[in-house]
């Protein structure tokens, strides 16, 4: 059974149908890419998956449980965490604090514990900090825990956002254009990083425009255009699919699109 099963998912904003009866699956341990021209509805799908938007129709089943239109908190608790197209780090907080926020739902104590610094408070805080440090060290940010998120280089901030999502103990990571704004060597490093996370047991669904990355990293690819799923398959199949080529390069007017 698939880890994530999306069926007939639809979302419209007024008259605009942003996502139109889209269905796809992500199996455990896979890296799946969602591609398509700008405005195809990829980020809308992420927002539906994470509860930011409510779906008009369709079902999302994660890990055997229906999570359609659940609250963002419930979805994070179920095991889905995401990053953002435009970085949304907590800028004036430290690197470790950013990761600790990811671990917020697993840090369990009450107001009473924090006011009186009970044993439960101390052990939960220590556990949470240790987890944050382990994650940061595992991705090579061990030396930067004291630094402020804002002061880090762009590529590191991207990594930190992934670390923050990992700290929620998610099974499925949704990465929204992780390579955006990166140069070739940074993208190469990101590719290795994502592959490593796959080996570590994470399932990854990513939106990406960098075709080089998509072709090298994905087990399977889904292609969206105007809110509809137009193709799916392995990277090779996708690259040779005439519908995909048309969606990206087909008409004259579409030439300026960022592919």
């Amino acid at each position, binding site marked *: 059974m698939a880890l994530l099963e999306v069926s007939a998912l639809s979302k419209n904003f007024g008259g605009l149908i942003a996502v139109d009866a889209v269905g796809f699956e992500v199996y455990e341990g896979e890296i799946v890419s969602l591609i398509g021209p700008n405005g195809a509805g990829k980020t809308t799908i992420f927002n539906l998956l994470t509860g930011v938007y409510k779906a008009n129709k369709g079902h999302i089943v994660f890990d055997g449980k229906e999570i359609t239109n659940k609250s963002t908190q419930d979805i994070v608790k179920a095991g889905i965490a995401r990053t953002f197209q435009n970085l*949304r780090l907590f800028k004036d907080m430290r690197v470790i604090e950013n990761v600790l*926020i990811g671990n917020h739902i697993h840090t369990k104590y009450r107001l009473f514990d924090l006011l009186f610094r009970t044993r439960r408070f101390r052990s939960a805080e220590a556990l949470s900090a240790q987890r944050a440090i382990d994650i940061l060290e595992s991705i090579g940010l061990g030396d930067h825990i*004291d630094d402020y998120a804002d002061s880090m280089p762009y590529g590191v901030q991207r990594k930190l956002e992934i670390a923050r999502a990992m700290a*929620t103990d998610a099974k499925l990571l949704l990465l929204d254009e992780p390579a955006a704004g990166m140069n070739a060597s940074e993208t190469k490093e990101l590719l290795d990083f994502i592959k490593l996370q796959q080996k570590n047991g994470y399932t990854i669904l990513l939106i990406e425009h960098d075709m080089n990355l998509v072709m090298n990293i994905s087990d399977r690819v889904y292609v969206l255009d105007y809110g509809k799923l137009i193709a799916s398959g392995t990277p090779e199949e996708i690259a040779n699919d005439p519908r995909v080529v048309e969606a990206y390069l087909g008409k004259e007017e579409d030439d300026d699109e960022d592919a």
Partner: protein
Amino acid sequence: MKLKKILNIRISERVSFIILLVLLAVLISLPFFTPGQYFLRTATNIGIYAILALSLNITTGYCGQVSMGQAAFMAVGAYTFAILNTMHGVGFFPAAFVGCCVAGVAGFILGMPTLRLSGAYFVIATTGFSEVIKVIALNWKSMTNGALGIKNIGRPIVFGFELTNANGGQYYIMLLSLAAVIWISYAIKTSKFGRALNAIRNDELASNLMGVNTSSQKVLAFVISAMLAGYAGVLYASMTRYIEPNTFTTDMSTIILCIVIFGGMGSIRGMIIGALLLISFPEILRFMATYRFIVYGLILILMMRFRPQGMLGGVGDKPYKLPKGVKRKSYEQGGGVNGVT
């Protein structure tokens, strides 16, 4: 080189500890050296404003919600306390407790619908709330005695000993309360609750998507803030022994907000230094007390221009304090200790 660095840190920590001890000694012995009652009363007043600033700091400093309702919560606390005390003969401590709780309930009722608002809209809603409280205090004559106010509010009595300004008792009550509020502020700041509030201030959507229940955290912060302001109102009422609707005006909320911005949002020490400077200022320059709002305005403008993070706000360069028992691999390998516990 490294050793020197470590030594430096240790010495400066020791020095700051000694400074803290001296400061505490001065604060505790202050009533014995004061030139007069006026001085002690001003000191108590500064302390009450520091409590108010710390209370607002939780919503505004930590969570980024600028509230203008602090004087109103103070009024709710003060009136509840005064009514219980003068009309029903309830003692200081139980009445103060009820005052706090009623202010907290008021915070909950105001916070539930309005915390969804952002920025200027929230400021307007809380300002409106202040006016509503003032109108209630003015018109609910059977309870609040209207514009005449409530007189002869009781002072705290501990083991049959009345704590007045003359015997320094009120000053000590303030000092103890201030210490407690500083602890509460610190405990919140260094917990997952404080981190969540900070995250909400930075990016509410991202906090939500990391599983933080942002609305409940915001309401909780607002309720705690209202309770502490209510308690400051109780202290104020028992110090002045007389309250009326015009005691708790929007001007007062403005002063409290000024202290928070001036001291540095989110900083605990900043609130105390801010209260010290901004409240003692009109006392020192008594001849221009009527114009103090001009000076406050000027300070705020200059602050925004030259130091928007406030005196002690903004980011620090101290290493992050990890809880005990947390291990860092990179440090064990590198051999550096660097004061990380």
